[in-house]
């Protein structure tokens, strides 16, 4: 009968360990919520799921404690061989070693969170993931390829080059923007060619050519174009950057204001940096950085990961063999780091 008692003690220990872990998770989630660290981990639209799982963990944990101390006489659970997975019962050292590593693994999230407290993804992660300066590329998916044959009804005008007809051809009446443009000394000749296509007037709204996929961006572009300063807002960070990038020829010369963290890498020319944000779908594993390449024309120095708000004139430049937006920043100020460092796709966008 002592064997039976040993068995029960072992089972109780197991249940208590399990209960500790379950309760630990629920407390961790509560702690994260209380400290307002949740934005560092998951997107707001997933938060209720995580909070719900805290509740479930808590209830399950309490039940485990209850079952550990109140054995049920009527049913002997150990009689059912329903271990969920096959456990190769090693003996002696190997057994204790692998049990031990299992226990450590289970405790790892708590230990690591204590040792290295969470922090928002920074430019280190941005370097690994690669900042997208031309996000509109995802809208121009192989438009000459399969799309044209599959969706024969769509015309062949790609949203990528709405230039020729849509732009006023005369750039002679040089606006402020254009003059500033010519001041920039860019290494490649491409830029000067682009400058010729700059819209000369800022009062007249150019046409934003769009197909059915880019119509929502064209609509946003029309709204944005008449603003004196186009602010890249928190709510539509990605959408606005995408719109600006999609119609960058039209928007060149407009004033843009963008907040974000500073990102620099070796590939950038001197004086350039990017103002970027991470956009998150569900969790930090899928966060990817978006930003606008900038050149600093102010006296203020910037360093990586600093939070700034830059304002300046949008131009087009070459970066790593791509035509990307380049913001010529003439006004730069440091801002406090955002409480929620991430931006999220606007799910109501275009509807």
């Amino acid at each position, binding site marked *: 009968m002592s064997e039976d008692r040993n068995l029960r003690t072992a089972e109780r220990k197991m249940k208590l360990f399990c209960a500790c872990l379950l309760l630990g998770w629920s407390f961790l989630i509560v702690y994260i919520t209380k400290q307002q660290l949740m934005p560092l981990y998951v997107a707001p639209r997933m938060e209720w799921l995580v909070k719900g799982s805290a509740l479930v963990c808590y209830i399950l944990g309490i039940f485990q404690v209850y079952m550990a101390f109140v054995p049920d006489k009527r049913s002997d659970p150990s009689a059912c061989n329903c271990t969920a*997975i096959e456990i190769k019962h090693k003996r002696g050292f190997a057994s204790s070693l692998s049990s031990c590593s299992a226990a450590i693994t289970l405790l790892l999230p708590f230990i690591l969170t204590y040792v290295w407290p969470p922090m928002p993804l920074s430019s280190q992660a941005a370097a690994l993931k690669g900042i997208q300066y031309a996000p509109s590329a995802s809208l121009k998916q192989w438009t000459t390829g399969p799309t044209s044959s599959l969706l024969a009804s769509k015309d062949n005008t790609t949203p990528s080059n709405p230039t020729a007809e849509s732009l006023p051809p005369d750039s002679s009446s040089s606006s402020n923007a254009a003059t500033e443009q010519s001041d920039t000394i860019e290494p490649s000749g491409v830029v000067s060619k682009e400058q010729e296509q700059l819209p000369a007037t800022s009062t007249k709204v150019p046409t934003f050519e769009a197909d059915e996929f880019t119509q929502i961006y064209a609509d946003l572009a029309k709204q944005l174009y008449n603003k004196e300063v186009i602010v890249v807002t928190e709510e539509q960070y990605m959408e606005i950057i995408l719109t600006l990038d999609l119609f960058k020829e039209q928007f060149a010369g407009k004033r843009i204001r963008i907040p974000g963290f500073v990102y620099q890498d070796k590939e950038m020319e001197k004086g350039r940096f990017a103002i970027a944000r991470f956009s998150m779908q569900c969790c930090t594993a899928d966060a990817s950085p978006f930003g606008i390449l900038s050149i600093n024309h102010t006296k203020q120095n910037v360093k990586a990961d600093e939070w700034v708000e830059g304002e300046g004139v949008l131009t087009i430049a070459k970066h790593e063999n791509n035509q990307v937006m380049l913001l010529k920043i003439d006004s730069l100020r440091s801002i406090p780091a955002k409480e929620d460092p991430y931006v999220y796709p606007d799910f109501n966008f275009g509807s």
Partner: protein
Amino acid sequence: MLSSTKRSDDPTAHPSPTLPQLPLLLPFLLLLALAGVLAVQPLSANTELWRTFTTVFVSILLEAMPFLLLGIILSSLVHVFIAPDFFRKIAVKWPRPLLIVFAALGGILLPLCECGMIPVVRKFMQKGLPPAAAVTYMCAAPILNPIVYASTATAFPSAPWMAVGRMAVAFFVVLTIGWIVSLIVRRSHSFLLLQIDSYRETSTHSGNQPFIPLPIKLRHATEHMGKEWMETTVYLTFGACITALFQTSFPRNLIVDAPWMNPALEHVGLITLAYLLSLCSTSDAFIAASFTSMLAPASLLSFLVFGPMMDLKTTLMMMTVFRKRFILLLALVLLIIVPLFAALFISVVL
């Protein structure tokens, strides 16, 4: 106390409950991954790197936890409330090919994602679902469901055929997988599963005894949830840990923007990336969409189809059900047929 006498007869039959035991391969794997990180990252490993690592690690776990809990609750309820032969009885009535097709479309009925999948699939097999159908469902459900279709369509607004392609390629891939598994099973059952005997439930079980009162059943189910939660979480945590290491140390452009890329290598490269990043099937399309300017559509399809079927996180969780050699075989087969079908689809569409 019939059970206790049985226990003393054969001590291995009912071993005393211990912590779930990790195969020792896993700590070794972790050390390997750590060495890899230190090799890629400059040796002046700063705390920022490790803080980011912890954040990503816990973030993956937090994100997986609701779905894992859903999986174990479902599995425990199935365990207690559904008769041991339930699926077997259904399965014998259906012709095998039809069963596999049905399993492939199972994701529409029960759209589970990768994290919650394993406990449920394990339980379904214990209740007599043929392994071929179970594996088919396991591979299919994370892709072939309406949620993933919608998110893929959103991520590729100007290429609606991408979402269609993902579904179509996944469908034919899982059918092939199901067919291969049923061939294997016909030859030897033990190639596939860990310890087949533990999957035949004994008649002591509630399913055969209709007169067990509900509270006892519920208690039993709750007990199960605890056990299963712990056993699955060990593997999930391990997977999340290694995934986070890769997430925070592996430069994407090694694969995405590499100069040595050619169309064939691109498939392999992107499949490797999908495997290492272990993204959720609902959000990986957005990552794929950000690669569009650099990569061919066929290899992106490979990325989108392979990732949800098999990645680092799920491989570890699969080790609670399948033998390592089967997992390896599955990975190899997927590595061959996913690019094949993806390329085929693209060439047909073109």
